[in-house]
C-alpha cells in the first residue's frame, strides 16, 4: 500500500478560495516525486496537507496508517518535514546552528544523536562554514539550504521541498541533486515542487502534473514531457532538449541530453 495517500482531498482557504479540488494521490515509501504546474495550480496547498500544516476540508490524507485528521500538526511534522517556499517564512533563529538545532531539540532527541544529525545535515547542505552565521547575513539562495538543513536534521521519513531550485545557481542546483540522492539512499520519501523542467528530467522518475486545483497526469518524465495535451493543460512546455528533438522530428520521446546526442548522431550516421 502506498505510504502517502490522498483520498478525495479538497481544500478551501478561510477567505473562501478553493485551492485543491477533490484529488487522489499515492506515493510509495522511498519514492522521489516531482510536482510541477503553474503558480496557483494547488501544488503548495497539496503538500501542506501532507504534513498537517493544512487540514483537508473534505477527503482524507494518510501517512502510513496515520490519518492526519486524528493528529496535530506537531505530531505529523515529526514524520513529514516541509521546507517552505520562502525561507524567510521558516527561519527565526539568529544563527544557522540554532535554526538547524530547533527541530531535533523540540523532538527531544538525545544530545549525542542530535549533534550527529546537525553535523550530518550541515555537511550535506554545504553549511559547515556558515554554522555560526546569522541566516539573514547569507544570500537568499543559501538561506534556502538553511531551511533544508533544519528539516534533514529532524530525520523525518518524508521530506517535502517547495521550489528549492528557485534562484539557485549551477553549484546550488548540483548541491540539491546531491541532497536528493543522499536522502533517497537513506530511504526517505521525497516530494519536490519545482518550475525547472530540466531539473525534473535529471532528478526524478515520477512526475505529478497539476493544473487548476487538480491532477492532470502522473508519469515518468518521458510520459509527461511528450504528452502535449497534458502540457498544454498545465501551461507547461517541453524542456529545451525534448523540444529540439521534437522540432527535428527525432523519435523516442527524448528527455535526456545523452539520449538526444546519441539520437542526433545516429540520424546523421555518425558512429
Amino acid at each position: 500500500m502506498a505510504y502517502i495517500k490522498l483520498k478525495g482531498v479538497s481544500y478551501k482557504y478561510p477567505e473562501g478560495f478553493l485551492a485543491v479540488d477533490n484529488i487522489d494521490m499515492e506515493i510509495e515509501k522511498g519514492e522521489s516525486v516531482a510536482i510541477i504546474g503553474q503558480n496557483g495550480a494547488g501544488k503548495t496547498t497539496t503538500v501542506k496537507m501532507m504534513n498537517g500544516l493544512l487540514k483537508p476540508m473534505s477527503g482524507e490524507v494518510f501517512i502510513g496508517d496515520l490519518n492526519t485528521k486524528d493528529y496535530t500538526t506537531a505530531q505529523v511534522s515529526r514524520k513529514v518535514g516541509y521546507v517552505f517556499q520562502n525561507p524567510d517564512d521558516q527561519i527565526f533563529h539568529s544563527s544557522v546552528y540554532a535554526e538547524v538545532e530547533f527541530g531535533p531539540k523540540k523532538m527531544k532527541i538525545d544530545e549525542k544523536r542530535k549533534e550527529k544529525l546537525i553535523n550530518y545535515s550541515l555537511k550535506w547542505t554545504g553549511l559547515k562554514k556558515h554554522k555560526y552565521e546569522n541566516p539573514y547575513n547569507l544570500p537568499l539562495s543559501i538561506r534556502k539550504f538553511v531551511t533544508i538543513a533544519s528539516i534533514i536534521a529532524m530525520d523525518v521519513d518524508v521530506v517535502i521541498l517547495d521550489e528549492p531550485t528557485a534562484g539557485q545557481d549551477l553549484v546550488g542546483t548540483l548541491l540539491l541533486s546531491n541532497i536528493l540522492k543522499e536522502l533517497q539512499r537513506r530511504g526517505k520519501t521525497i516530494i519536490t515542487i519545482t518550475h525547472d523542467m530540466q531539473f525534473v528530467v535529471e532528478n526524478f522518475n515520477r512526475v505529478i502534473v497539476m493544473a487548476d486545483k487538480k491532477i492532470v497526469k502522473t508519469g515518468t518524465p518521458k510520459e509527461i514531457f511528450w504528452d502535449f495535451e497534458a502540457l498544454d493543460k498545465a501551461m507547461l512546455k517541453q524542456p529545451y532538449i525534448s523540444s529540439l528533438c521534437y522540432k527535428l522530428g527525432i523519435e523516442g520521446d527524448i528527455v535526456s541530453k545523452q539520449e538526444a546526442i546519441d539520437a542526433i548522431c545516429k540520424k546523421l550516421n555518425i558512429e
Partner: protein
Amino acid sequence: MGAIVQFKNVTYNYPLSDIPAIKDINLSFEKGKFYGVIGENGSGKTTFCNLIRGFAPSFYKGDLKGEVLINGKATVDYDEGDLALNIGYVFQNPFNQISGVKDTVFEEVAFGLENFGVPVDEIERRVVDIMKLTKIEHLAEKNPFSMSGGQQQRSALASIIVLEPDILVIDEPTSQLDPEGTESVFEIIAAMKAAKKTIILVEHKVDLIAEFADEVIVLKEGQVIRSGKTQDVLSDLSLLEHGVQLPQMAIIGDELIKRGVPLDYIPVTTSQAMEQLEKLLNKEAK
C-alpha cells in the same frame, strides 16, 4: 554615442568589510541595449545593480572607489529624485519593494507616479495599461502583501515600468515564477527594449538570456570575467568551470561537435541549433 551607464575603475566595499564586493570594473552600457548579468550567487550581481542605482553608496554607505556614471554624471553627484526618475530598479525580493502604505495593487502601481506629481487621469490610464501588459489586472483590488511570490514579482515589475524610466535594472524577476510567467516577463522586458529602454537584467535562466539579451556580463568574486555579445559569451564552455550555467543548446552543441558533428559554431538558442542541424539532416537525407 556616449554611454548611458559607465563604470570607471569601480571598486566597492560594504561597510566593515575588507573584501571588495565589486573589484576593478570598467564597463560601458549603450542606450537601448539589453544586457544580461550572470554569475554564481555571491558573485556581486546585486551589488552591481545597487551601484548603478546609486543605493551603493548612498544607502548602503561603504567605500566606493572610481565612478559610476549615468549619462556622464557620477551617481554620487545626483539628487536622489533625479536618479529615481532615470533608473527603475526592480528588487530581487519583491517583498522589499512593496511600499507598505497602499492597500491595493492598483494603488501600489500608481504610487510612484503620484510621487512624481503626474496628473490623476494620466496616472489611471498608465496604471491600467501596465497592469494589462504585466497580466495583473485581476489582482487590482488585492492587498499587495496577501499575494503569492509570483504575483508580487509581477506587481513589483509593473510598479517600476509604469514610471517609464530610461534605464531598467531588474534583479532576478522570475525566480518565483512558473515557466509561462517567466516567459511573459521576458516578453515584457523585450517590449521595454523595443521602446528604446536600456535593460540590465540579472537572471539565472541563461536559456532565456541567450534568446533575448544583446550582451552578457559574467561576474565572479566581484570582477567581470567575461563581457560581450551574447553568442560569444554563452558559447564559451570554460565558464562552466567558473560555476556559471550555460544554455542547454551550448552544452549539447559542444558535445555534438566533440562527437564529430560538423556544426559551424556552438549554438546558444534552440533556433540556432535547429538551423544548423536541419541543414546537416537535409544533406544527409539526399
